[in-house]
C-alpha cells in the first residue's frame, strides 16, 4: 500500500471538509427555498451551486480519506434519548461516499437544465429536498450512533419521498408515494428492532459498543437483511422501486437508483462489520436472494416498455449482482478462503461504484429522452440517435457497461465476482456449489441484460421515430449533456483502470474479508485483476481504431450511396413497420411467461385482407400482485370487521365500560 496510516491531522482536515459539505448542503437547501420566494434564478444558483460545491468538497474529502486510510470517529453530545452525534470516517464509509457525492453533484448540474422548462414554481422546493437528500445520505454513511443513523435514514426517506411526489398534481404520484412511504416505514420498523437488540447489551446506541446477544447473530442479520434490503430493493422487497423511480424527476431517479438504494447495501455491509461473524447459512441466504433478485429483476425489466420502469427493474438486478458478490465474500470468510472472500467483497463493492455510475448515466439519458420527446414509452420512441447524438452515444456506453461488456466498468466488477465463483469451484464441496450457483446466475443475467439493453437502446435510439413527438426530438442542453459525458468517460476509465481502483479499495476489502495480511499479500485481489487483461482490452481498442482507419482507406474515393432500408421489395417502408420493443422481447418473455404473468391484450388479424391487428402486453409486478396487494386487502377487510364496535348506540358504549369494569374488578379481587 502506498500511503500508510494517516496522521490524525490529515484526518481532521478531511473530516472538516466532509462536515463543511454537510453544512453547506443544509444551508444552501434552505436558502434556496427562501430565495425562491423572490427570484427563481437565485434559488437555482443557491441550490445547485451549494450542491455542486458541497459535492466537490465531499468527493475530495472522501477520496482523500480512502487513499490516506483515515479511520477516526468524532463524537459530540446530543440531548436525545440514547442519541449522540457520533460521526465516523473509515475506509468503508469513505468508499460509499465517493459515488454518493460524485453522482449527486452531476445530477445537480443536470437538474439545472432539466427544470428550466418548469416556469412559475419555486425551484427552491426541489433544491431543499435534493440537497437534504444528499446530506442525509452522507450522514447515514457517516453515522456511528443508532439513533443518529435512524434519524438520518428516515430523513433520507422523507427527502426522497417528497422528490418522488414532486409532481403533486399527478394523481399517480400519490400511489407511488404511498407504496414508497409504507415500504420504507416497514423496513425502518425492522431496523429499529435491530438496533435496539444490538444496543440492549451495552446501555448505549453507539456502534462501537454494539454486540449481538449470544446466538442471535444470525437472527439479527436476517432482521437487518430485510430492513436494509427493503431500501436496497432486494427481491421481493423491491416493490416500491419500480413505482417510485419512474414517478420521480430523472435527476432524482438517477440519485435514488444510483446511490440511495446503495445505502441499503452499506447497511448490510456495516452490519457484517459490526456482527463480525455470522452463521454460514446467512451467506447462502444472501446468495439465494441475490440470484433471485438478479434473474427476476432483469426478466421483469425485459418485459417493461416504460423506459424508466425498465431501468428501475435493472436496479433490482444489479443489487442482486452486488448481493451475489457479498454472499460469495461471506462464504469465503466462513469457509476460511481469504482470497475468495476478498474477491467476493471486492467485486460486490466495485459493482456498487460501477452501478452508481452507469445507472446514473442511463437514468440521465432516459431523462434527456423523456425531456426531449415528452414520453417514456419505448413503443413511441425511435431514431433518437440521429436527433440526439450525444445522449445516444452516452446511453450506448451505459448500456454496454450495464451488460458487463468489456472494456467498460461493468465488466470489471462482474469479472471479479466470476473469478471468486471460479475460485470457489476449484475449491471443495459446499463452496464449489456456491460458485456454480453464482456462475449460472451471472451468465443468465448477463445474457438477459444484453437482450434487454439491445431492446432499450436499439428501439429507443435506432431506426425511425415511432411517433411525431419522437420525430421532433432535439438534443438537450449543455448542462444536461456534460454530466452524461463525464459518466460515460468514467465507465470507460474504470473499465480500463480497474486494477488501480482496486488498489485504492484494498483497505475496504480488508475490513470485510478480515485478516488483511492475506488480502494484502501478493496473489490477492488486484493480482486477480491481471494487467494482461487490460493489455487485451487495449488491443481491442487499438484493433478497432486500426480497422476504422482501414475501412476509411478502403472506401476512400469510391462511390458511397445512400438509399432506403432494404425491405423485401416493398416500395414505401414506414416507421410503423419496424419491430416493436414488445415484439423484440416476446420470445424471451413468452419463455418466462410462467414467472412474468403478463396481461396480454391482442387482436389477431382477421379475414383474408386483415384491416387491423394489435398486440399489447403489460407486465405489472408479480410480487405485488400475488403477494402484497392481496395481503393488504385481506388485512384491511379483517380490520374493517371491527367497525361494528362503533355502531352508534350510547347504551352499548356504557355497556363496554361496565363489562370492562366487572371483568377487571373480578380479576383484581379474585385472581
Amino acid at each position: 500500500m502506498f500511503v500508510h496510516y494517516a496522521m490524525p491531522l490529515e484526518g481532521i482536515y478531511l473530516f472538516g471538509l466532509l462536515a463543511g459539505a454537510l453544512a453547506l448542503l443544509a444551508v444552501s437547501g434552505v436558502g434556496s427555498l427562501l430565495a425562491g420566494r423572490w427570484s427563481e434564478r437565485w434559488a437555482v444558483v443557491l441550490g445547485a451551486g451549494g450542491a455542486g460545491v458541497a459535492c466537490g468538497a465531499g468527493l475530495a474529502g472522501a477520496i482523500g480519506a480512502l487513499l490516506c486510510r483515515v479511520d477516526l470517529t468524532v463524537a459530540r453530545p446530543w440531548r436525545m434519548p440514547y442519541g449522540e452525534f457520533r460521526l465516523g470516517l473509515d475506509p468503508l464509509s469513505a468508499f460509499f461516499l465517493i459515488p454518493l457525492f460524485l453522482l449527486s453533484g452531476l445530477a445537480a448540474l443536470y437538474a439545472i437544465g432539466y427544470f428550466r422548462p418548469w416556469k412559475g414554481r419555486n425551484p427552491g422546493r426541489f433544491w431543499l429536498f435534493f440537497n437534504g437528500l444528499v446530506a442525509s445520505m452522507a450522514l447515514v454513511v457517516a453515522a456511528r450512533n443508532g439513533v443518529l443513523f435512524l434519524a438520518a435514514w428516515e430523513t433520507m426517506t422523507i427527502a426522497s419521498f417528497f422528490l418522488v411526489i414532486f409532481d403533486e398534481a399527478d394523481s399517480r404520484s400519490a400511489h407511488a408515494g404511498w407504496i414508497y412511504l409504507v415500504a420504507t416505514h416497514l423496513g425502518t420498523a425492522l431496523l429499529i428492532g435491530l438496533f435496539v437488540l444490538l444496543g440492549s447489551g451495552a446501555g448505549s446506541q453507539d456502534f462501537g459498543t454494539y454486540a449481538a446477544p449470544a446466538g442471535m447473530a444470525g437472527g439479527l442479520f436476517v432482521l437487518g437483511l430485510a430492513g436494509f434490503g427493503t431500501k436496497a430493493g432486494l427481491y421481493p422487497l423491491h416493490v416500491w422501486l419500480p413505482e417510485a423511480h419512474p414517478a420521480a424527476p430523472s435527476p432524482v431517479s438517477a440519485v435514488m437508483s444510483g446511490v440511495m438504494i446503495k445505502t441499503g447495501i452499506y447497511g448490510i455491509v456495516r452490519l457484517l462489520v459490526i456482527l463480525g461473524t455470522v452463521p454460514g447459512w446467512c451467506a447462502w441466504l444472501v446468495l439465494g436472494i441475490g440470484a433471485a433478485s438478479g434473474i427476476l429483476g432483469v426478466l421483469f425489466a425485459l418485459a417493461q416498455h416504460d423506459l424508466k420502469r425498465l431501468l428501475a427493474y435493472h436496479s433490482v438486478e444489479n443489487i442482486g449482482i452486488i448481493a451475489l458478490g457479498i454472499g460469495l465474500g461471506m462464504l469465503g470468510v466462513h469457509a476460511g478462503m481469504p482470497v475468495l472472500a476478498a474477491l467476493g467483497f471486492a467485486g460486490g463493492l466495485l459493482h456498487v461504484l460501477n452501478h452508481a455510475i452507469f445507472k446514473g448515466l442511463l437514468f440521465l439519458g432516459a431523462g434527456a429522452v423523456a425531456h426531449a420527446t415528452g414520453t417514456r414509452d419505448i413503443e413511441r420512441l425511435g431514431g433518437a440517435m440521429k436527433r440526439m447524438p450525444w445522449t445516444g452515444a452516452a446511453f450506448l456506453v451505459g448500456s454496454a457497461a450495464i451488460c458487463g461488456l468489456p472494456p467498460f466498468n461493468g465488466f470489471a466488477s462482474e469479472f471479479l465476482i466470476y473469478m471468486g465463483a471460479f475460485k470457489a469451484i476449484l475449491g471443495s464441496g459446499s463452496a464449489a456449489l456456491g460458485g456454480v450457483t453464482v456462475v449460472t446466475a451471472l451468465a443468465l443475467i448477463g445474457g438477459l441484460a444484453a437482450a434487454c439493453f439491445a431492446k432499450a437502446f436499439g428501439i429507443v435510439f435506432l431506426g425511425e421515430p415511432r411517433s411525431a413527438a419522437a420525430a421532433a426530438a432535439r438534443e438537450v442542453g449543455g448542462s444536461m449533456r456534460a454530466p452524461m459525458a463525464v459518466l460515460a468517460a468514467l465507465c470507460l476509465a474504470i473499465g480500463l483502470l480497474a486494477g488501480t481502483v482496486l488498489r485504492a479499495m484494498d483497505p475496504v476489502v480488508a475490513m470485510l474479508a478480515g485478516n488483511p495480511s492475506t488480502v494484502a499479500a501478493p496473489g490477492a485481489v488486484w493480482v486477480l485483476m491481471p494487467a494482461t487483461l487490460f493489455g487485451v482490452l487495449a488491443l481491442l481498442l487499438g484493433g478497432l481504431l486500426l480497422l476504422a482507419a482501414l475501412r476509411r482507406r478502403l472506401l476512400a474515393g469510391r462511390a458511397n450511396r445512400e438509399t432506403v432500408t432494404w425491405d423485401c421489395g416493398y416500395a414505401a417502408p414506414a416507421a410503423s413497420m419496424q419491430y416493436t420493443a414488445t415484439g423484440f422481447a416476446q420470445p424471451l418473455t413468452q419463455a418466462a411467461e410462467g414467472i412474468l404473468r403478463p396481461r396480454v391484450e391482442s387482436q389477431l388479424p382477421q379475414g383474408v385482407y386483415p384491416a387491423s391487428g394489435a398486440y399489447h402486453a403489460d407486465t405489472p409486478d408479480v410480487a405485488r400482485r400475488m403477494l402484497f396487494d392481496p395481503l393488504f386487502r385481506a388485512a384491511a377487510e379483517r380490520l374493517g370487521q371491527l367497525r361494528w364496535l362503533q355502531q352508534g348506540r350510547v347504551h352499548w358504549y356504557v355497556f363496554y365500560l361496565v363489562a370492562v369494569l366487572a371483568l377487571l374488578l373480578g380479576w383484581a379481587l379474585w385472581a
Partner: protein
Amino acid sequence: MTLALILLPALAAAVAAAIRSDRLRRALLVAVAGAHLALTAACWIRPPVCAPDAWLGFDAAGRLFLGIASLLFLAVAVYAVHRLGAESRGRQAEEDTGSLFVNAPEAVHTACLLAFLATMTLVAASRHLGVLWVAVEATTLATAPLIYFHRQPRSLEATWKYLLVCSVGIALALLGTFLLVVASAAPDGTGGTLVVRELVARGTALRTPWLKAAFVLLLVGYGTKMGLAPMHTWLPDAHSEAPSPVSALLSGALLNCAFLGILRAHSICGAAGLGGFSGNLLAGFGLLSMGIAAAFLVNQADYKRLLAYSSVEHMGLLSLGAGLGGAALYGALLHAVNHSLVKAALFMVAGNLLAAYRTKQVARTRGALCLLPVSGALWLAGLLAITGTPPFGTFASEFTMLRAAFAPGREWMAVAALLALAVAVAGMARTFLGMALGPVPDGFEPAGRRERLAAWGPALVLLTASLWLGLWIPSGLNDLLGHAARLLGGCAP
C-alpha cells in the same frame, strides 16, 4: 402563583361571558392565554414552593402538563379567534348533511374556553385526588358546551354521548377515590387520606384489595376520559363534531389531564408494591387501544375521525409506556408533549381544509397541496410527525418506549406495538396522501389562493416545536421530564 394560574382564566371566563363586543372578547381570550403562558413560564423557571401536604401545587409532572395545556391554549386561542371571525353569523348549512343551524352565542363559547383552561390548570395543580376528581369532572362540564357550538343534530348527539359516557366513567373514578381512602385509613377507620404525596409515602401500608379495586376503578374512570379502548367510544364523535379549535384542545390537552390522573394512581400502586399489577393493566389497555385504533385508521372516510382515532392510538402508546415503566415512562411523558403539539397542529390544519372544502369526507378532499399550498404542506408534515418519523420528536419518544419494551420476556409487546404502528402508518399515509396530492376537484378556485397567517401560523409553530424536540431536547425540559419520570416511579434514560 398557583392560585393566580387557576383564577386568572376562571375570572376571565366570567368577564368574557359578560362582554358584549366580539372584538373585545376575542382580544381578552388571546390576552389571557398569553398571560397564562407567561405565568406558566415563570412557574417553570422558578417553581413555587408549596407545603408537602398542600392540595394545590405544581410538582414536576404537574408543571409538565400545565406547560402543554398552556402552550396549546395560546396557539389554539389565536387560531380560534381567526375561525370565529370566519364563522358566519346567521343560519348556515352543515358541511355534509346540509342541515341548517346557528352557532351557540360566542360569549358562552369563549367563556367555556377560558373555564376549560382554568379546570385544566386545576387538574395539573391538584395533588389531592379528591380535588383532581372535581377538576377532571369540571373539564368535562366545561367542554360539553364547546362541542355543541354548532347547534345542529350531529354535534348535539356527539355532546350527549360525550357527556353521558364521560360522566359515568368519572363517577366510577370517584368511587375509586373513595376506596383509596379506605385503603389508606388506619384500622380504626380514621386517618384516611387522598394527598398523593402522603399516599405514596405510606407505600406498602395501604390495603391491597382495596387499593387494587381503587386502581381498577380509577383506571376505567379516567381511562374513559383519556380515550383508552374500549372506553374511547365517545372520542371520535366528539372530536369530529366539535369545531376544530376545540378538537385540537380536547385531543392535545384534555386527554393528557386524564392521563395525569392515571399516572398519579399508578405511582401510588408502585409505591405500594403493586407496580406490576397496575403496570400490566396499563400496558394491556395500551396495546388494546393501539390495536383497535389502528383498525379504525384503515380506510377511514372522515378525516377528523381519523385524527381522533389516531389520538386513541397515541393514548394507547402513552399507556403502554407508563405500564412498561422505567425509561419508557420518560418516553411516555415526552411522547405526551410531542403528541399534543402535533395533534393540535393537525386539527387546526384539518379546520382549514374543512373551511376550504366544506366537507369532512376524505373522498371529496383532493389536491390540497394545489388548493392550499401551506396547509397542504403542513398536512403532509403532520402526517410524518404523527407517524413517528424522524427528525420529528415523536420518533425520539417512540424509540425510547420501544427500546424499553424490547426487554427480555416482553419483546412481544414491542413487536405488537410496532405492528399496530405499521398498520396505522399504512392507513393514515394512504388517506393523507390522497387528500394532499392529485388535481384540485372542479368547482374550486385554482391554486395560489392566499391563506391567512392566523390560519396556518399556530399549526406551523407547533409542528416546528415538535421538529425542534426531535433535533434537540432543551435541558430544562429534559430535567423536568426526568424529575417527573422519577416522581411517577420511572427513570430517565
